[in-house]
């Protein structure tokens, strides 16, 4: 749907809008495009999935899970969770502002903070809430935020919710970012605080920006920095501590946000920083104060995942080996990809709209992957987004690549194929 169609849809009366959206949804499901598929069993590299309008679950090879290290179904993690349930029970019984904060929360927060060489952290039920938390807790309408144009929807919603004036910047154009900061400072009336956020590992293609220079610029203009490292934790850095470790910048950003639902394989998210900044979030951020604290099994799962990442850094190396192996195979087969440093491999096809057909065919052949289409990515840059796991075997990667090549060929979408055929 292009933006004109979107605006026209939004301007319809509610009941008409709902009817149109629902019928479009049913059509998607009927044609097998709808990605709201239903899985069964533990999240792993092989899973059962079924379409929404089907009763039969089929085996699929999963290259679309954020559980990059395979920790969602790890025996050690499961054992630690079971032990924690016996010892601490389940729910937290309240928000951190009331009764829902325990020693288990505190110990885990301290541990998560250390991953970025920070002093303290707050735990939240998910990445969306974590982004709401730092915007809402730190800023008000008298400050300014300059955010990465690729920032998650939650950051943009948090800005609206908080009423903080906002500017957007392109992390690929840091010279322009610096000029923008200069301009803001020059025109500001009085002593205004600028905040800025950037993605560590970019969620759309797995690449990493020139973070060192970004931080230097921010320091020069006294900007408070917030790193969104949702896809970096557990996937980059020698010991999996994320983008900051990978680029040797530990302790160099003011706040680091990451999730515990991806490589960590559990649920929830956290924001870490200095004790003063975290004090602000803990005491003044509504999304933290008024949401129930994480449940005990989740805390245990995150802690156990950290145990594994600390004691078995070879898992991260295995992930990288798998990613490099898959990147090589895809390129050898003539597929156009971006060679990122994390677990994400985007695969591009030349023709508009073909990626959803390819993905549907892949799913029918037993390969589960995700796609990103406009407006999540710019028009013309639709892509298949493959997520590699440390636990994938070479055979599984070979199978996935063969299926992708075979399917792309069938749709005439292999690089250069259209030219060859028309020659």
């Amino acid at each position, binding site marked *: 749907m*292009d*933006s*004109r169609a*979107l*605006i026209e849809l939004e301007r319809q009366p509610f009941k008409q809008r709902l009817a149109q959206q629902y019928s479009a949804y049913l059509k998607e499901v009927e044609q097998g495009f709808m990605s709201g598929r239903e899985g069964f069993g533990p999240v792993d590299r092989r899973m059962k999935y079924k379409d929404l309008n089907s009763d039969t679950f089929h085996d699929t090879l999963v290259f679309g899970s954020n559980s990059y290290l395979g920790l969602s179904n790890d025996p050690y993690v499961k054992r630690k969770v079971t032990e924690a349930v016996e010892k601490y029970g389940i729910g937290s019984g309240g928000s951190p502002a009331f009764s829902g904060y325990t020693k288990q929360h505190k110990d885990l927060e301290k541990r998560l903070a250390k991953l970025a060489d920070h002093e303290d952290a707050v735990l939240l039920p998910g990445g969306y809430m974590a982004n709401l938390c730092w915007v809402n807790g730190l800023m008000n309408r008298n400050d*300014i935020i300059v955010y990465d*144009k690729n920032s998650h929807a939650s950051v*943009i919603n948090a*800005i*609206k919710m908080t009423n903080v*004036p*906002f*500017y*957007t910047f*392109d992390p690929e154009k840091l010279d322009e970012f610096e000029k*923008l900061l200069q*301009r*803001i400072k020059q025109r500001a009336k009085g002593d205004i605080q600028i905040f800025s956020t950037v993605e560590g590992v970019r969620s759309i293609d797995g690449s990493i920006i020139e973070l060192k220079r970004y931080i230097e610029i921010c320091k020069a203009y006294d900007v408070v920095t917030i790193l969104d490292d949702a896809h970096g934790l557990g996937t980059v850095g020698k010991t999996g501590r994320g983008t900051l470790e990978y680029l040797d910048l530990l302790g160099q950003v003011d706040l680091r946000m990451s999730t515990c639902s991806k490589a960590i394989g559990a649920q929830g998210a956290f924001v870490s920083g200095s004790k003063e900044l975290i004090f602000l979030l803990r005491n003044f951020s509504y999304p933290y104060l008024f949401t129930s604290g994480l449940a005990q099994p989740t805390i245990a799962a995150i802690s156990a995942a950290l145990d594994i990442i600390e004691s078995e850094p070879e898992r991260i190396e295995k992930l990288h080996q798998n990613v490099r192996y898959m990147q090589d195979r895809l390129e050898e087969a003539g597929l156009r990809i971006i060679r990122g440093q994390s677990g994400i491999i985007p695969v591009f096809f030349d023709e508009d709209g073909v990626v959803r057909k390819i993905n549907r065919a892949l799913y029918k052949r037993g390969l589960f992957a995700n796609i990103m289409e*406009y*407006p999540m990515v*710019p*028009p*013309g840059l639709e892509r298949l987004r493959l997520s590699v796991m440390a636990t994938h075997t070479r055979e599984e990667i070979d199978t996935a690549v063969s299926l992708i090549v075979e399917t792309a060929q069938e749709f005439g979408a292999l690089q250069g194929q259209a030219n060859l055929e028309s020659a």
Partner: protein
Amino acid sequence: MSHREDMFDAVLDVINNIKKTGFTRDAVEPDFYLGGDLGVDSKEMLEIWYELEQRLNIRVQDAEKRDVYTLIEVITVLEKKLDVVAAA
């Protein structure tokens, strides 16, 4: 409509209608940022493009609406479109 000042007025008028603001020509500069200076977010900007396309009888593709941060950048896109229409 090809005069730049007229174009400015059109853009400000549409912004004012959608945002319910009262920006006047003498209070804004061409290099004003849509977000930081005028409070227009990316979603609202799509509505503003829609209204401008209707009013000026042009079509701006979604790809052309990306990476547009300032008032003058909006006006440049519109002028290019109108030049194409005029040349046709």
